[in-house]
């Protein structure tokens, strides 16, 4: 009995930590609609700052002041990010700010390494709370009791802040209806800045409070941010109370889950999220939201088939690409091959994000399923490359068909997070099912057939398949199916009223996109010679998003340009500097500020490129 009680309390302590971080994220999203990837970085910053301050100041007063100061300082960093970067992006396409926050993640990682060094830093224990209390005879750390109390206290303070101050009223109003608040003439920029401060402060506080529990380390950002998103989405976006409930449930499920099935640690959170979202499409306490696109966003322009110029340019590009093997060596060809593969991957993601209006945070699942479709064929059936490249899109397409059925029932960030949940589930299967997938040690020996073995030969194969894939996706976008898909995105109400089954079309689109991502993944597997679960891990999905947004989600060529630019930056940075994350992060932030509609999206608005209205 005592054991279960202590396990229960442990779950609650974990829940409080999660809640602090998630509450900040939820408030920021609720008001600004920014999907803030940098939130985990602020958590990490809070921990590092608290460590340094606590070591400097020492003593009980020093310790608690350090925690408070670290939280406030982190809040200020959030404000700086808002003032310098995010502020310029509020009129960008949906989710565009996500890109900037991704840049900030990279910057903070390297800055933290430069300032605090590579070693994990074990901070002091909380003065006065070092020991344990006995609960039904079982020891339980005093500090964890403090954490347990802190969750509800912060929840209560936030409630007072939201319901007893004018600022809070504005925040709630903006959370419910951002356009309405704008129409009421409330100073939005000021509101957003202050919200970033409060949200980042909570992240910093959450991190700072960890120093008595864990060694501060450079992986804290990545380890917390995804879980914080899960808590926010399970609770219902923008609902702080929901976040609290979700954090408690997740904390307890983790605490008790490992008793029943210790191996489930990798996936339990995502399984839980998937179940919640399938049953409750807006989370536990969320309400249906006005769709995130709308006022503030420039409406997407009609698409046009390429004119004479466009066709000439496309053919010219293909000719140039076809001529490159004569000029370049193996490495350049390998990088170009990867670029083409990633361009197809980005195009497939754009297909559902742009025309389909469905954001995916888990598109790498289908890239990875394609790679495994090829890899498993090699490993278990000794299949050749041609068979592998056929099975790749089939495997991924079937996966997308299955998961898509659930996903298209949701919308907005909920849909995105459900795709993430499925991606993580697939990832953990690949990661843990050693007998079949080889686990995290992957599948080796996925080599091209003899004829495609030279780099130039494989380059041509990739050129044909990727260019073919991209052109086919483009063709579909211009087909009646593509138009109907966009119709469903533009106005679900009208689409339904003219006989278009929007969900059905989205499901098909999801499957098509999955299949093409799978083709890209299959090609990638043969280009690398090996398949690992990392191919379907979260960073790969994020890369896809970055490519699409960087190029311009509201354009058709944007994803291709985004893939090329991002991959070139990525590979070149690594060659030239140890601090490639810092430089890449700065580059992304600069690109985002210079091209606030994405590269192609912004260029297309320049007078020179603009298509005249007929």
């Amino acid at each position: 009995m005592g054991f279960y009680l202590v396990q229960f309390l442990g779950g609650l302590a974990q829940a409080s930590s999660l809640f602090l971080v998630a509450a900040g994220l939820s408030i920021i999203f609720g008001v600004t609609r920014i999907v803030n990837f940098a939130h985990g970085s602020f958590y990490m910053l809070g921990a590092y700052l608290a460590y340094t301050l606590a070591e400097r100041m020492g003593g009980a007063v020093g310790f608690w002041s350090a925690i408070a100061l670290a939280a406030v300082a982190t809040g200020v960093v959030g404000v700086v990010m808002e003032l310098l970067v995010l502020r310029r992006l509020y009129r960008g396409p949906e989710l565009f700010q996500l890109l900037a926050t991704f840049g900030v993640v990279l910057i903070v990682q390297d800055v933290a390494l430069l300032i605090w060094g590579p070693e994990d830093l074990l901070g002091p224990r909380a003065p006065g709370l070092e020991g344990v209390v006995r609960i039904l005879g079982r020891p339980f750390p005093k500090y964890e009791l403090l954490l347990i109390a802190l969750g509800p206290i912060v929840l209560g303070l936030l409630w007072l802040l939201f319901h007893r101050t004018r600022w809070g009223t504005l925040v709630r109003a903006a959370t419910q209806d951002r356009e309405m608040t704008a129409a009421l003439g409330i100073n939005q920029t000021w509101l957003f800045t202050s919200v970033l401060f409060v949200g980042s402060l909570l992240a910093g506080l959450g991190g700072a409070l960890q120093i008595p529990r864990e060694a501060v380390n450079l992986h804290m950002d990545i380890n917390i941010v995804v879980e914080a998103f899960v808590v926010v989405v399970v609770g219902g976006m923008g609902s702080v109370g929901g976040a609290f409930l979700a954090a408690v449930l997740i904390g307890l499920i983790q605490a008790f889950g490992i008793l029943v099935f210790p191996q489930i640690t990798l996936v339990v959170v995502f399984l839980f999220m998937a179940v919640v979202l399938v049953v409750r499409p807006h989370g536990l306490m969320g309400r249906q939201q006005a769709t995130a696109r709308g006022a503030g966003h420039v409406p997407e322009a009609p698409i046009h088939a390429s004119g004479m110029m466009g066709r000439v340019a496309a053919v010219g590009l293909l000719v140039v690409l076809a001529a490159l093997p004569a000029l370049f060596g193996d490495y350049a060809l390998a990088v170009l091959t990867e670029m083409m593969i990633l361009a197809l991957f980005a195009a497939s993601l754009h297909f559902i994000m742009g025309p389909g209006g469905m954001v995916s945070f888990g598109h790498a699942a289908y890239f990875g399923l394609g790679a495994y479709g090829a890899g498993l064929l090699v490993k278990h059936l000794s299949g050749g490359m041609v068979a592998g490249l056929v099975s790749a899109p089939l495997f991924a397409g079937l996966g997308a068909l299955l998961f898509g059925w659930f996903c298209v029932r949701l919308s907005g960030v909920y849909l995105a997070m459900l795709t993430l949940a499925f991606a993580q589930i697939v990832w953990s299967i690949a990661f843990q099912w050693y007998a079949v997938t080889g686990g995290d040690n992957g599948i080796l020996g996925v080599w091209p057939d003899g004829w495609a073995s030279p780099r130039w030969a494989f380059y041509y194969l990739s050129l044909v398949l990727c260019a073919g894939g991209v052109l086919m996706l483009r063709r579909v976008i211009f087909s009646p199916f593509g138009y109907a898909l966009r119709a469903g995105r533009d106005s679900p109400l009208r689409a339904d009223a003219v006989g278009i089954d929007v969900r059905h079309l989205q499901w098909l689109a999801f499957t098509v996109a999955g299949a093409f991502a799978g083709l890209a993944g299959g090609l990638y597997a043969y280009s690398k010679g090996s398949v690992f679960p990392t191919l379907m891990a979260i960073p790969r999905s994020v890369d896809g998003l970055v490519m699409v947004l960087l190029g311009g989600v509201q354009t058709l060529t944007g994803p291709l340009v985004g893939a090329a630019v991002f991959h070139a930056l990525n590979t070149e940075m690594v060659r030239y500097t140890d601090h490639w994350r810092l430089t890449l992060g700065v580059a992304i932030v600069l690109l985002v500020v210079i091209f606030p509609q994405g590269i192609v999206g912004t260029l297309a608005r320049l007078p020179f490129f603009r298509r005249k209205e007929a």
Partner: protein
Amino acid sequence: MAVLEVSGLTKSFGGVQAVKGVGFSVEAGELLALVGPNGAGKTTCFNMLNGQIRPDAGDVRLAGVSIAGKSPRRIWRMGVGRTFQITATFGSMTVLENIQMVLLSHHRNIHDLWTRATRRHADAALALLDRVGMASQASRPCGVLAYGDLKRVELAMALAGEPRLLLMDEPTAGMAPAERIDLMALTADLVRERGIAVLFTEHDMDVVFTHADRIIVLNRGELIAEGPPAAVRANPHVQEVYLGSGSMYGHAGGKTP
């Protein structure tokens, strides 16, 4: 046979009867106005006809075939076109493409992944636009049109499905008075030349009395009057219901919620 026949239509929400045993019919080429004070059950009634709400009891027959409880998509396929109180068009498409989109759906082409959508039904779409006076703006993006023009596009979209019945929810809401007259005159011409039956709700009584062939009046979920405009206007019960609101007789402009 009447195009639309409604009988005994009933719906309640949580014990409150929103619509009680309403029955009426609309003939081809006829414009029937559905009016009533706020909260009379107009919207509920309307949404049961277009499939967004399933009725508790009663029947809705389109040319003799029951459509009660069917989905909006099915009902549209059976020949019921709609316009919305707040226009709903496809903002990222040109005006012409909006109409083509409806024609593609009408001709069951939307599972075609290969042919160029803009090359399909272009002439038919242009002809429809011409008929509503929007041909000159065919290649403009729908997202930038003036509101009155959007209403015309929506009308053309509704017509593109070759409907037998047109359901128009507050067709002139949000429009300037002069535009209202034009739009309703256009609608009246179109339905008469094509033999379409129209059921519309409307706040603007000028529009109602000018263009409706017949009027039905709802109050508290019940049908309290039915007949040609003059008869309804003279109906003491109707006058009583509308007394004080002024909207029955004055210029009740711009009453959008």
